[in-house]
């Protein structure tokens, strides 16, 4: 597994091996090799040791600072690599003597025989790398989450930064970030399943060739556990069929949906009475078959929801998640949080996210999801912001959208009184004509072959239902919306809103 024999040394064992458990009381200037380890029960045994041994003082030998001093001297005479003593047996004078003799001195809290055995195992494996790999395999097998497995890898490499990347975008990171130059070691993960290259990467301090080789071996061993943990995390996703039904069902009465699609709601994490903000994640390409990206999106989402309580579920046009919120929670602040944590990664993946606004009615799931989708669509179209909250858009969203279904959706959300009005089509026609003629009531009335007073009355109704025909900033959006509604009215479709 390790390729070629390596020498054990003090620094390596401190970084990856048994000596990680020991407290270094003094470290000699060199980095001596470790050729053997001896659990000493009689001081004279040290005289028989080969050079580069690690001298471990057995608890059975007794205790006392003099013992450590005498052992240090004998170890020094035998050119031992280090002396390990029980934590209660050293004093400042022992440390002082280790310094004078320039011999490494460790203390351990537990029974010294344990560390002697661990060192012997490393030596028996001919390298601490083999031991580390065996330890990693054991630890990774018991880790249940992706984070846990990555933490195991990081720990074996002295807390090195470990990243999971998809197409160059960092989806998940554990371990500390190091300053200064680093060496990078990577291995492909789930690339065949995802269709796009994804990698598990370790960043190590530069110029530590031994650690680079160990890291390479560790990643190879860890890869199956990483893949298993990643895929296991996606098992909570609802089936595509159910999700398509979700889209369809949102167009119908809510009460019917809750009865028929409890499973979908469960996957969304929805609970009756809880207030939510919906989040829609969409991507540029509308090509079908993006299911493999669900793994990526869900992993990315952990930066927003580390406990994975409200993982995104896949829909026919992207992904939807429900974030539980308190009444006082600011949607804009939520958007900023999401933008900060995953905005850059979303943009790099050609994706965008939209958030719904706040609704008094906790059961208003359909409008929440629609708002989120519209916001995501605007975010995708504008490209300057990866995450947008619907309250930031309002009717102006229409101006950003050339997509008719989206505009109709905006109208449905922003002008509910108009959409419910019995004279909706007449009002829309009047507003469109009025705006088509740049605010000329006379010309508009003439184009519609109605009296000026009739048109005035219809415009008054338009104002009453919230169409901003007198607001210069919003007049364009109102024009677009009314034009779109008018075109639909001319068509024969009975559906008020298309799924988008």
């Amino acid at each position: 597994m390790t390729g070629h024999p390596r020498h054990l040394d003090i620094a390596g064992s401190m970084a990856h091996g048994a000596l990680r458990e020991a407290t270094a009381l003094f470290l000699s200037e060199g980095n001596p090799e470790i050729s053997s380890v001896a659990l000493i029960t009689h001081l004279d045994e040290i005289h028989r040791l080969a050079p580069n041994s690690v001298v471990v003082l057995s608890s059975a030998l007794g205790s006392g600072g003099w013992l450590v001093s005498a052992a240090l001297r004998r170890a020094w005479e035998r050119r031992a690599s280090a002396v390990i003593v029980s934590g209660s047996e050293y004093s400042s004078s022992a440390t002082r003597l280790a310094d004078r003799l320039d011999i490494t001195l460790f203390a351990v809290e537990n029974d010294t025989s344990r560390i002697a055995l661990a060192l012997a195992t490393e030596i028996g494996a001919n390298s601490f790398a083999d031991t580390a790999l065996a330890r990693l395999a054991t630890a990774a097998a018991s880790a249940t989450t992706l984070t846990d497995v990555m933490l195991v890898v990081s720990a074996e490499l002295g807390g090195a930064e470990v990243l999971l990347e998809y197409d160059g975008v960092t989806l998940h990171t554990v371990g500390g970030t190091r300053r200064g130059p680093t060496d990078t070691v990577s291995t492909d993960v789930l690339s065949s399943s995802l269709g796009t290259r994804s990698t598990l990467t370790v960043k190590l301090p530069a110029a530590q060739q031994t650690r680079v080789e160990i890291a390479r071996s560790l990643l190879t061993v860890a890869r199956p556990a990483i893949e298993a943990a990643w895929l296991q995390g996606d098992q909570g996703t609802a089936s595509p069929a159910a999700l398509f039904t979700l889209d369809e069902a949102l167009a119908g009465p809510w009460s019917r949906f809750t009865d028929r699609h409890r499973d979908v709601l469960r996957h969304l994490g929805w609970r009756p009475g809880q207030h939510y903000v919906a989040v829609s994640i969409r991507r540029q390409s509308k090509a079908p078959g993006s299911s493999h990206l669900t793994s990526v999106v869900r992993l990315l989402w952990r930066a927003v929801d580390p406990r994975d309580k409200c993982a995104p579920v896949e829909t026919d046009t992207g992904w939807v998640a429900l974030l539980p919120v308190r009444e006082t929670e600011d949607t804009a602040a939520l958007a900023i949080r999401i933008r900060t944590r995953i905005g850059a990664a979303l943009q790099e993946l050609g994706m965008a996210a939209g958030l719904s606004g706040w609704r008094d009615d906790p059961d208003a799931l359909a409008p929440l999801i629609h708002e989120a989708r519209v916001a995501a669509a605007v975010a995708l179209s504008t490209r300057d912001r990866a995450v947008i909250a619907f309250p930031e858009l309002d009717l102006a969203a229409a101006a950003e959208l050339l997509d008719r279904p989206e505009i109709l959706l905006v109208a449905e959300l922003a002008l509910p009184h108009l959409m419910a009005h019995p004279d909706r089509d007449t009002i829309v026609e009047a507003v469109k004509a009025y705006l088509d003629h740049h605010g000329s009531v006379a010309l508009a009335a003439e184009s519609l072959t109605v009296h000026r007073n009739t048109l005035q009355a219809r415009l008054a109704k338009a104002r009453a239902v919230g169409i901003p025909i007198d607001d210069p900033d919003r007049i364009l959006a109102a024009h677009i919306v009314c034009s779109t509604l008018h075109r639909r009215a001319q068509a024969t479709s009975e559906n008020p809103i298309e799924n988008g």
Partner: protein
Amino acid sequence: MITRLIADDIRHLGTGAHFLACTIDPMSVFSYADMIEETMKERRLMLVDAADLAPDDLVVAVGMVSHGFTFADMPPAGDEFVGCVEAIEATMGQQVRGIYPLAAASINGMVPAMVALQMSLPVIDADPMGRVFPLISQTTLNLAAIPIGPIALMGVAGDRAVVEVGDAQRAETLVRSLVTDLGGWAATAMYPCAAAQLRQHGIPGSVSRMIRIGEVLDSDRPTRWKHQHIARLLGAKRITNVRVVDIEGASRPSDVAVSALPSSISLVDEESGQVVRLEIQNEIVLVLVDGGTAAAIPDIVSLVNTDDGTVVDLSDIREGDALDVVIFDAAPPWYREDGLRLAGPRAFGIPLDHPRQGS
């Protein structure tokens, strides 16, 4: 050789007794010196060699055996040691002709002079330890199979016991037990033997050596002269001018048979950087220099102040003190195999061979 001791000799004797043990509580040594000097105004005190006595003359060792208490805690009435010697005489049916110290150091180096004055007997210039050991079985007489008993003990309350026992190890157990009940310390007389036996198996000249040590250290000569002459007198090696950097109490497990709280003192030679470690158990039992064994019991180790050459009290050592460590050989019998077995490092719970073992 028969020598009449004078007051100055007693003062030097006290200094020498203190030096040979770095006594934790030297007050009792100097209190005895004062009492002896006072008594000497009326009586003569003779120091004799064992060879100056008839070979069959009965001689006996006197010494204080303590188990927690000292003279300072419970001062003697004055007749305790005389009572012990008289008990030996009664038991043996023979008059004692000479007194010798159980240990030629510390308080037990002083007691025989007082007893000798009280009983008009000479002090014999010999002892069975040649230094001080904590156990009454750690004697050259025991090495030579000279019986330790009968042993007479007398406590401060006037209680007296005679233990008729031959085996020194068994005697150790019995005496320690009795001492506890007698009040924490007891005057004892033991190792009653013929003068010829003491001459053959004891350590000769150990009393006069204490006086000579005192003569050097009590002199008005410069400190440097004192250091040099002590080294010459004792054939000692010195570790000079090392500074105390660390003092540890209870630094090792204590042996039940040896009632002393082990402690350690670490010193550093500020010029060479050498790290010196002293392990103490009543006396200094081990000296490590840079972790190597520079001295181990039965070697005799003493401490003097670098600045003025005075003897250091172990209980008064503080961090920052500058000391000279003086190391010299014990009597030759202690380096025999049986001697090291009885009084070497392992007898004090230190799992080390003496440097002379195996060499």
